[in-house]
């Protein structure tokens, strides 16, 4: 049997487990804990319950998945820091449970011959099974990276808040990533138990969790290949050092802490000097870069993006909406209604509460009091991704693009809620996925063409000029197929020519029946496109009406120019 090869393969599995959460920008330290659960559960099922391996292994993996849901559901809705803390605690808890149940686990002495776990009964897996399982996982990750799910993860990785307003259920995806990570760690643990033939709770102590993390961090969490590289380097490097330099240096021969120290160093050095990990070096190879930026779009069509369903009458109603931050009231008892197909200019001095209003309607903030009705339904408690999926799109005053993704990809992310392909279809490689992806790309390219961005479609969005980035945001929001579009200072940072083109585009957009809310300080743009003005000052709505009447109102003039 090749013990070294088994260990390398198991570490590769563990690295993929760490990748799963890290890729979703979550720091989980639970891998060692789930590995322990998988290892002990499978060992107990095989040795004590007499299950065959092909049932015990999946059983153990399933247990890990259930436990991950119990841990993840409360914790993943919180800030990033909490997952690290909760999973660190979880790892310790698992070890305590193992030690306190000697009848089942062998307790502190471990699961070995002396505690009733026979080596022959335990030792069941063959290296080829590990290879096959790893290959299977790599296939899943490979398909996932190219699917809508993979794109959603990349968006979450770059900007979770913007991702949620694209209709991506960020908490849901993070839970999925955490459960997937637990399933893989559990499988790795079960393989470990049956490859080694005995278990010891110290195999799963906290330093193991850090080792596993170091594989993914050194390799890089941007692509599934990274962690595999990291696991390879960090598994083999200590062996090379010990066999190479160590053969002449006595101290190194018995230096059992060497792997841990190397892992710790790898973590610290990689995070400071190579934040993208080893895999980010591949971006410097031109062939890899063009491959990963390849565009696969169908022939261009002359279609115009129309709202998914043109509504009529009142679409949005705010009733006495108030939002305060600590002692500061950003919005105070704001009430108004928006009618379908009309364009509203939302104006007011800086700090009047305009962006707060957009954040409330798009679900990034919750109102302190009051009601928000979307086509008659109360949406104040809806998460941002649901609001986006129901037809409200927005752009940001402070540009929130996924800056590492290409312009085209950014716009395709906007289609997230409209693409129905799920992971199963993409794992099975069903034709539906290709069809939907091609359609989404065609539509995205169409939008980019109409906004004059076709030439930069394959550039990373972060590389574009300010004005271009604003237009990408508009294209991305339109890709969502919204019925209501909230534009937060779309012309900020644009020159006069760009602003004029934007005005023309907005006028064209009005014809499609889309309801628009435009926040702007360029008054000529506002006057040109708006059917109606809403004026905010110090968090209160001080005027609503046609541009002519509102701009003559004394309170409005006073708000802009001051008294006297």
């Amino acid at each position, binding site marked *: 049997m090749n013990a070294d090869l088994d260990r390398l393969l198991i570490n590769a599995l563990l690295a993929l487990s760490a990748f799963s959460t890290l890729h979703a*920008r979550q*720091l989980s*330290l639970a891998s060692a804990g789930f590995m322990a659960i998988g290892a002990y559960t499978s060992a107990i099922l095989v040795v004590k319950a007499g299950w065959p391996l092909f049932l015990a292994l999946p059983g153990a993996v399933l247990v890990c998945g259930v436990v991950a849901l119990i*841990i993840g559901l*409360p*914790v993943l*809705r*919180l*800030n*990033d*820091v*909490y997952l*690290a*803390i*909760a999973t*660190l*605690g*979880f790892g*310790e*808890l698992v070890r*305590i*449970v193992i030690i*306190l149940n000697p009848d089942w686990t062998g307790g502190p002495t471990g699961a070995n011959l002396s505690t009733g776990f026979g080596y022959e009964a335990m030792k069941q897996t063959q290296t080829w099974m590990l290879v096959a399982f790893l290959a299977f996982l790599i296939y899943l990750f490979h398909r996932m990276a190219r699917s809508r799910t993979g794109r959603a993860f990349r968006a979450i990785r770059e900007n*979770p*808040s913007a991702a*949620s307003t694209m209709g991506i259920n*960020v908490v849901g995806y993070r839970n999925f990533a955490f459960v997937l990570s637990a399933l893989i760690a559990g499988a790795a643990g079960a393989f470990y138990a049956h490859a080694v033939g005995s278990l010891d709770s110290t195999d799963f*102590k*906290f*330093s193991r969790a*850090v*080792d596993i*993390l*170091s594989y993914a*961090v050194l390799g890089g969490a941007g692509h599934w290949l990274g962690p595999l590289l990291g696991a390879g380097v960090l598994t083999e490097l200590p062996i090379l050092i010990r066999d190479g330099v160590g053969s002449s240096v006595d101290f190194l021969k018995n*230096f*059992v*802490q060497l792997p*841990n*120290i190397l*892992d*710790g*160093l*790898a*973590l*610290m050095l990689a*995070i*400071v000097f190579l*934040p993208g990990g080893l895999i980010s070096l591949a971006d410097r190879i031109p062939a890899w870069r063009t491959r990963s930026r390849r565009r696969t779009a169908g022939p261009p069509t002359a279609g115009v993006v129309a709202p998914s369903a043109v509504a009529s009458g009142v679409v949005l109603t705010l009733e006495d909406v108030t939002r305060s931050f600590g002692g500061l009231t950003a919005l105070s008892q704001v009430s108004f209604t928006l009618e379908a197909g009309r364009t509203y200019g939302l104006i007011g001095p800086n700090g009047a509460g305009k962006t707060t209003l957009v954040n409330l309607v798009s679900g*990034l*903030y919750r109102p302190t009091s009051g009601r928000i009705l979307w086509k008659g339904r109360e949406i104040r408690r809806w998460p*941002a991704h649901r609001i986006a999926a129901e037809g409200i799109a927005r752009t940001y005053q402070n540009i929130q693009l996924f800056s590492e993704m290409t312009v085209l990809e950014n716009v395709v992310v906007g289609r997230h809620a409209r693409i129905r392909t799920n992971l199963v279809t993409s794992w099975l490689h069903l034709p539906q996925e290709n069809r939907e992806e091609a359609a989404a790309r065609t539509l995205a390219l169409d939008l980019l063409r109409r906004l004059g961005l076709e030439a930069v479609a394959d550039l990373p969005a972060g590389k574009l000029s300010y004005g271009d980035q604003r237009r990408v945001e508009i294209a991305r929001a339109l890709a969502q197929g919204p019925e209501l579009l909230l534009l937060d200072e779309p012309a900020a940072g644009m020159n006069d020519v760009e602003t004029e083109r934007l005005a023309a585009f907005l006028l064209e957009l009005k014809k499609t029946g889309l309801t628009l809310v435009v926040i702007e300080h360029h008054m000529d743009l506002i006057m040109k496109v708006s059917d109606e003005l809403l004026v905010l000052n110090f968090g209160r709505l001080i005027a609503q009406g046609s541009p002519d009447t509102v701009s003559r109102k004394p309170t409005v003039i006073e708000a802009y120019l001051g008294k006297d």
Partner: protein
Amino acid sequence: MDLSLFLDPTYLGQNLVDGLSRGAVYSVFALGFTLIFGILDIVNLAHAATYMWCAFFGWIVLSVFGLPLPVALAASMGAGALVAIGLELVAFRPLRREGAEPLAPMISSLGASLILVSIAEAVFGSATRRFPGTVIDPKPLEFGGSGGLRVTWAQILILGVSLALMAALGWFIRKTRMGMAIRAVAASRKASQLLGINVNAVVMTTFAVAGALAGAAGILVGLMTNNIFPGMGAQIELRGLAVVILGGMGNIEGAVLGGLILGVVETFTIAYLPSGADLKDAVAFLILFLILWVKPTGLLGKSAGTRA
């Protein structure tokens, strides 16, 4: 649960004293977490490794050099401050740059922790070290004759030192210029920078204070459990994190309150639950998990932990 025991006032009092002195150590340790979280919004996951090294350092001062306890306490706090400053310079400061991954400082502190613990294992082995018996009078004070309340000198010292440290910290944070600067940086790093506060100096001072607290905790735990080994950090790390979450992340009063609560609950678990001694290690996790379910902002926390 044995109710007759619960009603016995001496037994209850005894457990309260034991629990509070245990909890006081947790508070001192957890304050280090909370201070760093307060100004940087991240958890220094090498705090427990710092504490472990300080305990060993105290052991060297006491056992190898045979110096008295106050010297060991001061030396250990100084060592803790130095280790923490080193961590700030190596693991945290390089990552306080524009566009850095938000999780990066926690990841690098994990790496630092793994290195510190591994070196300790290589240097000291896994054997347990103990403070010499002459450090403190082992004979407890007895109140109410035999069978009455027993308070050890170690407990008195632990409570005294902990309370003194917490009071000193409170004074430092509230009344000194540096304390005010720390609070300003905690409120907004950017605004503090614009106001001319040297943020790096403030952060480094905070690390020094947090490290000194880890050093004190190392000595106090040494007195309490008399059990010093490279893996000792893992035992208190989870407790410290449970304490800061219980009290509210970044909240100083919360860390004090949370530590005392955890100490008392652990002691009562041992005293009143069947096989409680085994369960006591799980108490911290259960409290941690419960509070994350019910009130993630903690008992005294204000800012919402929920993401948008």
